[in-house]
């Protein structure tokens, strides 16, 4: 129990956060790359064909992990936003701002791959379906948080707190959007094809396995990329502190 408390406190202070997580980077990246390679190869070449959709269903192996990540990351941003706002914790601030670009990227990937999937399935790249619409709005939430921060970039403390506020507002609003959008199209459903068609296609473990592997891979990648950015963020905003100087000089020692 004590060890957990101690770990928690250490993760709260920028220098020890930096020191501890530094060692996680490489394993995360390797895991991410390895699992991605495995998942994609298996998914693209060895998983059986879907009896309805043929090979086009293979898009699922990038689409769904990205979709899951897009929501997962926003939840993290919202939680970190609350911590930043209430307790003014530097590390939470760093994690929040570091997660924004990756989250936005995964959201964009979901949208784009979904569009690429929509063309063969429904004959159109885009339809105003509940999931797509709410995903698009999620992208706006990401852009809002990032834009808020960027607008005040000269004053990082203010920027982070305002961005946190925006993230919290988004967190409150996200379920409302999801719900209302589903509700909106379920009343006026005009498109006869729904997204669930694909998920019913997944019966066999051979299809599911690569999907789960890809989901894991994206999680690891997220941790890697988020930590890298969080480190950058901490170095930048704490530039005057002693530990930054040490950390930076150590970095140069590693790469002469």
């Amino acid at each position, binding site marked *: 129990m004590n060890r957990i408390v101690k770990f928690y406190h250490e993760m709260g202070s920028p220098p020890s956060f930096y020191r501890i997580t530094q060692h996680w980077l490489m394993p995360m990246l390797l895991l991410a790359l390895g699992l991605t390679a495995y998942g994609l190869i298996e998914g693209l070449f060895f998983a059986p064909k879907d009896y309805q959709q043929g090979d086009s269903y293979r898009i699922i192996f990038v689409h769904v992990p990205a979709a899951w990540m897009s929501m997962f990351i926003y939840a993290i941003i919202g939680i970190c936003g609350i911590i930043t706002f209430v307790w003014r914790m530097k590390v939470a601030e760093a994690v929040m701002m570091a997660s924004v670009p990756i989250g936005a990227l995964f959201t964009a990937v979901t949208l784009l791959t979904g569009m690429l999937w929509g063309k063969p399935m429904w004959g159109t790249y885009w339809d105003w379906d509940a999931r797509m619409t709410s995903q698009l709005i999620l992208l706006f939430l990401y852009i809002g948080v990032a834009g808020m921060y960027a607008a005040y970039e*000269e004053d990082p*403390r203010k920027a982070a707190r305002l961005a946190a506020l925006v993230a919290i507002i988004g967190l409150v609003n996200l379920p409302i959007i999801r719900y209302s959008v589903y509700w909106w199209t379920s009343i006026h459903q005009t498109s006869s094809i729904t997204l669930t068609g694909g998920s019913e296609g997944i019966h066999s473990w051979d299809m599911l396995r690569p999907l789960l592997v890809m989901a894991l891979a994206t999680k690891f990648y997220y941790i890697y990329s988020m930590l890298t950015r969080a480190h950058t963020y901490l170095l930048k905003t704490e*530039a*005057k502190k002693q530990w930054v100087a040490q950390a930076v000089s150590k970095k140069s020692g590693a790469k002469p």
Partner: protein
Amino acid sequence: MTTLNLQVKHVQCQRSGEPLFAPISLHLRPGELAVVAGPNGSGKTTLMEAIAGLGLLAEGSIQFNDADVDEQWLYHSHYLGHKLGNKGNLTCEENLRFVCHINQIQATNQEIEQVLDQVGLSGYDYHFASDLSAGQKKRLALGRLLLLKKTYWLLDEPFVNLDQAGCEWLYQTIKYHIDHDGAVLLTAHDQKKIHQLADHHVTLCEPEEAIS
């Protein structure tokens, strides 16, 4: 009334991550005048704003009546900065009246007229604040001080744009305020008289790291 005192302890402000001046301390009590001096860009405005509650401190603390600054401090102080805070498309009279209401102070028409008289804007009651000259805008903002009767006045370059008579008037007003248990913290370039009147001189100089 307990004595209202303001304690500024080892305060430093920063801009774009760099501290602007060496830490300063100041203990201001009613009846005293403090003048902040320093060349252009030394951080006077930044400091004044921080004290007024419009900015954060990089180091040190500001205490009012031995507690961290809070509503009490807002209740007893008024800040007048480079941005004057007049609403352009309200008339002078409406501007002053609004300030009274928002501070929950009762002011009769006569009192407001009297204040306008004092700041040299008699006859401008129904003139829009945006249509005043630079000096007149300043005078209107100074009128707020007279109406609100707060103890602490925080004035950032209050003499700027005023004509000679105006400067003299402001000098006398500040003097009167101090003599009647008010306290004033101001910045001013090139106003010898007010510097002579001051009880405290705060001079902002380069932070030490830069010197060593």
